[in-house]
């Protein structure tokens, strides 16, 4: 049983409310930070903790905070990214719904560290009911003196507001989020300037994921060094993993980074094993990361044990590795079709492209169309090279990472499952049945051993 820092009190009676949360040690980090630490000391603890952004990019949080510009007389903002929309990811919703005060507590401590007096939570519009839960938590915290003017008599003021979005994956990209928060279309901005210099209302701004800000609570309570003792190498602390797909026990799990992937999938403590005939593949970090075939999931290509860390999951680069990403971990059994799932990925990115960069706006649509026809028995063999060509021309050629995120699932699917794409071109009648691999799995051609 690993340590739990965020979900330790999950499910305890009353934990959703302020009283229950306080009874389990809640808001200690605010008292400690505001009364005994300077803002810079809080930043220092976060640096020592080795905490990396939990939204998907994995950028060191302490470093991001230290980039924040501090010009005289200009307000600074903390904006929490609760626009959780990466397919496969539902951990932030779970945390906000079940323990809303941990986010509010983390925001107070973090805003103090950054010198922000107004902070916003930007939450995806589909999570309206979660926004209501957060609004209630904020009202409770305010009534108890944790928010507002002169918090704990320290002279520090903070207001937190919840902003609902309108349904757009792209607003999870931090500059698109800021545009949306300003009441505009969610078109990502050209960087630089980065939000740390010119963010919300052209003021210095830090944008962090919900889980990242929640993790500041145990870091301040126990110290950055204690936090950094959990994990392996540069993957410190715990991580919320959203587990779904063809597993026995889907759900949100808090793991210590460094847990072997095999144990995470097979153990009854976590996913509880695969449903159906056999494991086929897994997307370990949200839809934007490369898909891994079964033989590369538990072991790397060098036959080392694969771990749930930023480094181990990306071991082998894009040839044989993937990424931890947002921790959206979905598992495929062998009744699933890779072409069909890749088509669904492409459709998603086409729908969610903001449309400002041509390679992404046009390319995602082309990929969706080509994948549609392959999956529906109207494809040709040269469609596979066409897809490869399109994804290659999107990657790296767009303002924001959505282009890469659209390209990688297609590239990795072709890289690891080319036989299956070819089968679709050569067996149009077979694949017209949408459940073409339900009765019998697809069996790839035997590979010749290469030196």
């Amino acid at each position, binding site marked *: 049983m690993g340590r739990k820092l965020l979900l330790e009190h999950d499910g305890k009676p009353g934990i959703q409310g302020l009283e229950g949360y306080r009874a389990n040690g809640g808001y200690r980090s605010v008292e400690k930070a505001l009364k005994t630490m300077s803002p810079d000391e809080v930043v220092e603890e976060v640096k020592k903790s080795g905490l990396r952004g939990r939204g998907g990019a994995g950028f060191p949080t302490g470093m991001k905070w230290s980039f924040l510009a501090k010009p005289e007389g200009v307000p600074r903002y903390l904006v929490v990214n609760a626009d*959780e*929309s*990466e*397919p*496969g*990811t*539902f951990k*932030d*919703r779970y945390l906000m719904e079940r323990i809303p005060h941990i986010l509010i507590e983390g925001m107070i401590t973090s805003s103090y560290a950054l010198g922000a007096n*107004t902070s916003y939570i930007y939450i*995806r*519009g*589909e*999570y*309206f*009911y979660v926004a209501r839960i957060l609004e209630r938590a904020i009202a409770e915290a305010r009534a108890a003196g944790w928010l507002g003017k002169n918090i704990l008599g320290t002279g520090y003021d903070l207001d937190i*507001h919840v*902003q*609902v979005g*309108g*349904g*757009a*994956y792209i607003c999870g990209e931090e500059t698109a989020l800021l545009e949306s*928060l*300003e*009441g*505009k*279309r969610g*078109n990502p901005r050209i960087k630089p300037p980065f939000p740390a210099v010119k963010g919300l*209302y052209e003021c210095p701004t830090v944008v962090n994921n919900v889980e990242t800000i929640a993790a500041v609570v145990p870091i301040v309570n126990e110290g950055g060094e204690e936090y950094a003792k959990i994990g392996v190498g540069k993957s410190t602390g715990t991580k919320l993993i*959203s587990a*779904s*797909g*063809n597993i026995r026990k*889907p*759900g*949100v799990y808090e793991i210590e980074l460094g847990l072997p992937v095999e144990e995470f999938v097979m153990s009854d403590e976590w996913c509880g094993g695969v449903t159906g005939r056999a494991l086929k593949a897994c*997307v370990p970090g949200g*839809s934007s990361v490369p898909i891994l075939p079964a033989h590369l999931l538990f072991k790397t290509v060098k036959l080392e044990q694969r771990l749930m860390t930023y480094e181990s999951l990306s071991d082998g680069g894009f040839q044989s590795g993937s990424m931890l990403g947002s921790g*959206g971990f*979905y*598992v*495929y059994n062998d009744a*699933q079709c890779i072409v*069909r*799932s890749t088509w*669904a*990925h492409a*459709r*998603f990115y*086409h*729908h*969610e*492209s*903001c*449309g*400002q960069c041509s390679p*992404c*706006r046009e390319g*995602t649509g082309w990929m969706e169309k080509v994948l549609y026809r392959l999956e529906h028995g109207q494809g040709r063999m040269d469609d596979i090279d066409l897809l490869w060509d399109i994804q290659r021309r999107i990657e790296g050629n767009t303002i924001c990472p959505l282009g890469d995120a659209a390209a990688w699932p297609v590239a990795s699917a072709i890289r690891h499952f080319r036989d299956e794409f070819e089968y679709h071109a050569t067996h149009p009648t077979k694949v017209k049945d949408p459940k073409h691999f339900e009765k019998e799995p697809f069996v790839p051609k035997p590979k010749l051993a290469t030196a």
Partner: protein
Amino acid sequence: MGATVKAITTTEGTPPFHFSEAALAECKAIMARYPEGRTKSALLPVLHIAQAENNGWLSVNAMDAVAQLLGIRPIEVYEVASFYTMFNLHPVGRHVLEVCRTTPCMLRGADDLIAHLEQRLGIRVGGTTPDGMFTLRAVECLGSCGTAPMLQCGAKYYEDLTPAKADELIDRLRNSAERSNYTDR
């Protein structure tokens, strides 16, 4: 969602729009959250309120009223309303059933749920029942992959659905006096 174009309607034949007093008070409270000169920030939340006040969709009249309230040009409202998936620019059914179909839901049977709902309601995805009761949509990831297949209706998530549970939901919604809306008010 700029890659899929949404067109706005004309004002022709659509009723005038006025915020109710309660809604107006709610909008003003939201507008007060932002620094001076930044009221445009309230646009998305105010559009949600306008939509809930206008039978679940944004007519040009409703969008013009939002522009006037926020002191911005109508085009600034149209360009935003047409960008985000949750704003309906055409009338919708009393209950909009939005089934998530993105890959993780697909792995757990979203296609079967959609087929079942199409058959049960007698409409295809994108359609509205002739009695105006239900609109059926297939949407992209709703962040509920662990409890798939699922659908959203208004502010509520209905998770771990089976055909029987979906039927039960439809019966319940059919008899509900309230229109489902995102703001849950």
